[in-house]
């Protein structure tokens, strides 16, 4: 007799150890099989056990959603309507967009789920992990999915809770995009740091019934302005002046012409001494020759090269102006990199 009792105790212990060794996923699968076998009591026990896992032995979000759905259906068929509603509410708080498959669950399950969904005020938040705001039209886009239509407030806060900007106040239905251009309430680009995008769902009495927060890490991109274009190298410029000549040719030309004026009367009009008036021309030619002599000894400008160099400088100046304009635009816009972290529930009933 004692021997039989010992063997029985050993078997029970082994079975209990085996049961404890089951993973939550395995328990969930066992519970779903029991539900499908219409063994609702066993199903409820197994699913609750799966959902109650802790630490490293917990279900994933999708597993919890699936478990809660089957738990709700199980409790409904066990005539525990409140428990069923509670399970569905927990499901919707995890995934407000979830809907039961009507091919799998009977209409009474879908109907209860719909009732619970309409009575639940929760919002799911979806956002790209990384968003860059580099141009004037860039925005951080946060998609909000509500279980049912209800008023919400979307605010941006610093990590210490200080309000940075209210992004949205109003009703939220099925889905709602909320945009942030990276600026504070006064229009200046946001500083680097940790922010919290907070979504408050309000009840029919205006009280906040649930809040979720999306932690954001904002980094401003400093030093990403365009560098100044380098000025044209000295080798690109052409010489603007040619070396001065001797100027002798100018002097000779002027003096020869002046001498011609002096000699013309005797060459052309023999017997005529010529009038003194012509010495005005002689003087002008002599002065012109001397001026030419002086002028040509100085470096002579090369108009084509001066024009080419001016065009080169103007091209560079236009590039500088373009960079200045672009950098000013970037400073006004503020270049931000926004990294979104996991959404967390801040307040819940």
């Amino acid at each position, binding site marked *: 007799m004692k021997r039989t009792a010992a063997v029985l105790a050993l078997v029970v212990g082994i079975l209990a150890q085996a049961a404890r060794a089951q993973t939550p996923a395995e328990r969930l699968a066992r519970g779903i099989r029991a539900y499908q076998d219409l063994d609702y009591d066993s199903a409820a026990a197994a699913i609750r056990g799966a959902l109650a896992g802790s630490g490293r032995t917990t279900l994933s979000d999708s597993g919890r959603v699936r478990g809660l759905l089957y738990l709700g259906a199980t409790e409904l068929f066990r005539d525990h309507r409140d428990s069923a509603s509670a399970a569905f509410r927990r499901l919707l708080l995890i995934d407000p967009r979830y809907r039961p498959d009507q091919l799998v669950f009977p209409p009474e399950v879908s109907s209860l789920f719909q009732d619970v969904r309409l009575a639940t005020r929760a919002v799911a938040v979806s956002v790209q992990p990384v968003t860059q705001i580099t141009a004037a039209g860039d925005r951080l886009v946060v998609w909000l999915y509500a279980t049912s239509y209800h008023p919400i407030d979307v605010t941006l806060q610093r990590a210490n809770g200080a309000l940075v900007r209210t992004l949205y106040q109003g009703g939220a239905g099925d889905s709602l995009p909320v945009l942030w251009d990276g600026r504070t309430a006064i229009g200046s680009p946001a500083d680097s740091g940790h922010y919290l995008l907070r979504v408050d769902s309000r009840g029919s009495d205006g009280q906040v019934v649930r809040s979720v927060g999306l932690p954001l890490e904002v980094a401003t991109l400093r030093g990403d302005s365009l560098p100044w274009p380098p000025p044209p190298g000295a080798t690109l410029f052409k010489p603007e002046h040619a070396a001065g000549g001797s100027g002798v040719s100018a002097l000779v030309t002027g003096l020869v012409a002046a001498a011609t004026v002096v000699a013309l009367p005797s060459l052309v009009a023999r017997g005529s001494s010529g*009038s003194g*008036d012509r010495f005005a021309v002689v003087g002008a030619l002599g002065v012109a020759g001397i001026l030419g002599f002086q002028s040509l000894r100085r470096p002579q400008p090369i108009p084509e090269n001066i024009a080419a160099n001016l065009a080169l400088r103007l091209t560079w100046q236009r590039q500088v102006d373009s960079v200045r304009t672009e950098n000013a635009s970037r400073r006004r816009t503020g270049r931000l990199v926004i990294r979104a972290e996991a959404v967390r529930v801040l307040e819940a009933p």
Partner: protein
Amino acid sequence: MIGRIAAVVLACTLPAGALGAQGLRNLSLDAGVSRMRFHSAASGGGEALSGIAALGRARFFVGQFSIETSYSEGRLVPDTGAARYLVDGSVFLAGRPVSWLALRAGPHLRAYVTPGVTERWVMWEAHARVDRPIIAGMLDAHVEAWLALSSTVNVDPGALGARGGQAGLILRLWQSPLWARLTYVVDQAKLKSNARTETVESVLFAIGLGGR
């Protein structure tokens, strides 16, 4: 006198207006005044006159060729003898075989008008002119000589010949179509048998527009 000069300038301006800016490049107009001295020497004596004349000139360029017309008119007051009017006009066809040399030929008419008598000269002349820059694009000097290939005069014993020359400078304003010239001109015409020589000297100043 001024009216006739204006007519010459106007006659040359009309085609320039029709040509617009392109015409201004192909047309040159200038007008000014000249201080003239006339000296006549004859075996029986001579006379000397001086005065101011107004002048106008128009040149129309076609490629390396040009047509040049000029007109001047002035009153010469005698040092000795009777006063007379000098009327001078010419039409030349010019060519520029090289940039520094211009050749011209054409009729040159000159009349000395005194009450009751008008002495008319008709000369067919050939000119050669050399242009040299003193300061390129700004100051040019020029020297010109000419010879009458044939000449007639309505005074006995008839024309023997004529020749002349001129030298001066042209000042061009920087990047402007305006320019100015100061020129000394002298020519001498002879009657047959050395009966008389007539010498005309002038220092002229003119302001011009356009041209090359």
